[in-house]
């Protein structure tokens, strides 16, 4: 059984290329004589000017996680830093597009629209307008 890899939400077949890790999280990839440098930080990969989110579904791990009551396939929207919720743009059960704004958080005097990482149904909204949130606090989730 092979792992299924999602890049920006889509299932993508890995390239057949020569890859070496040169520094922790930094890879040199040679594909058909062309040289690429890929940098992994968290669940993101940067290649040249491009940036991708990725997700790996290991079929074995998946079997286990199926038991964990729908945790699989759920996406969480969290606050990247301490701030204040100034506006909630969606409702529970609403269908959202990838990139659609969900919650607006103000921090360091800037308003930041937290966007849906992929299309789905709003499973929960964990905050109210006016709430102060800590970094990492869950704002909402999508199923």
């Amino acid at each position, binding site marked *: 059984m092979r792992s299924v890899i999602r890049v920006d939400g889509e299932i993508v077949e890995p390239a*057949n290329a020569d890859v070496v890790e040169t520094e922790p999280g930094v890879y040199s990839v040679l594909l058909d004589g062309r040289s690429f440098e890929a940098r992994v930080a968290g669940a993101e990969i940067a290649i040249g000017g491009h940036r991708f989110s990725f997700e*790996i579904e290991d079929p074995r791990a998946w079997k286990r996680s199926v038991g964990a009551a729908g945790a699989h396939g759920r996406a969480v929207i969290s606050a990247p830093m301490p701030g204040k919720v100034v506006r909630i743009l969606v409702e529970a059960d609403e269908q959202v597009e990838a990139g659609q704004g969900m919650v607006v958080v103000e921090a360091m005097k800037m308003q930041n629209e937290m966007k849906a990482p992929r299309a789905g149904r709003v499973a929960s909204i964990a905050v109210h307008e006016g709430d102060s949130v800590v970094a990492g606090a869950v704002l909402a989730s999508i199923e």
Partner: protein
Amino acid sequence: MFRKVLIANRGEIALRIIRTLREMGIASVAVYSDADRAALHVRKADEAAHIGPAPSRESYLNIDRILEAAKKHGVDAIHPGYGFLSENARFAHACVDAGFTFIGPPASAIAAMGSKTEARRLAKSGGAPIAPGTEEGLESPGEALRFARDAGFPVMLKAVAGGGGKGMRRVDREADFVSSFESASSEALRAFGDGRVYVEKLIENAHHVEIQVFGDQHGNMIHLGERECSIQRRHQKVIEESPSPLVVKTPGMRERMGEAAIRAAREAGYFNAGTVEFLAENSGQFYFLEMNTRLQVEHPVTELVTGLDVVRLQMEIAAGTKLPFTQEEIALRGAAIECRIYAEDPGNNFFPSPGKITQLSEPAGPGVRVDSGIYAGWTVPLDYDPMLSKLIVWSDARDRAIDRMLRALGEYHVGGIRTNISLFEAVLNDAGFRAGEIHTNYLDEMLRRGISFEKPADEEVKRIAALVALRQQTETAATAGVASSNGSKWIAIGRDALLQ
């Protein structure tokens, strides 16, 4: 010359000053708040003094704590850097009172230029053109409105005690005038404890051009040419260059602006480094804007075209040395550009992006200078300005400097947080920028039209990403002994929270 100098600042500018001090054989004393114990300026200084908790007001803006550190470490002089206390006349005064040399202008000149209406008066009496406007700050809109009617809209309302865009309003129509005046005045009162506002005719589509002046304590004053800083976002400079493309194509403009800048500075009894800012129309007509009585963020572009070390010159002047050259000996060579690298996300409304820097590759090679305050492993604190570093390039001509900057930006990788590197790539590739046809609203207009900060990726690059994702999982599993630890910290926290 001084034996030991305290730097009342943090980040890249503290590092910048430490480097020159080391080259001069002068010991350096860094100061740090609770948030900065592991900061690069603390690591690289010869000595370091703790000055309080993270909030600036209790540390980097705390005059008493800084003077206490200066006494404890036995320094001869204090360099304020830029921002924080650098344009605080009371601080300059307190340094001198406590027996330290303040590396900057006299407190009286800081105070004079700190009042925007006083600065306009000094510039005018020195012969510099000023934008038409009211002579005095006003507390009620009556006289200001009369001026605006005569001069014609649009006009700018500005706080007398202004700075940082606070108490500033553009007014396009008479109908909005009174309410704009009142909101500007109350904002100024809150920010500066001084609600006075003055009005100026708005100079539209103007270049921001500034002159670096330098005076010694023996009455000599020269200028080091100009910088063009028209690429701004919300009145904040993001790209600076020297020479100015407008000045280069306008015969005699540098000499006229330089002369006006020197005379304005003389009127204030100025010495050491200072910058006189102007708005300039495409015709070459320019208007005095204000004077910054300190080292500027963008001083490196002047250093690269003049070949001088501006910070070294500041030390020498402060120690009483005469200017070691005349105006005729200053020659500008080639072209230099600076990009201010910020921890912010251009793809998300420039939202600040503090956090831990997990990877760092800085550009290098011919013509590239990086003035940085960060390192891999450093956590950018929430408490201060999110500028990480300045990337500065030099080449023999402006178009080559732009190509060099693009090359250098391509080598710059900051992992773990977002930066505005993609913003610079967009601007430097813009045809109007390359032609030098820029003005202070240029970038805001570009952003309003919409810039795509994410390049569209073809299928092949996605397939490479998939390959690397798979490989990273294997590496992570091999080193950590767990199957998946790819989530960044805040995603991990989010997951934990969900499972509770």
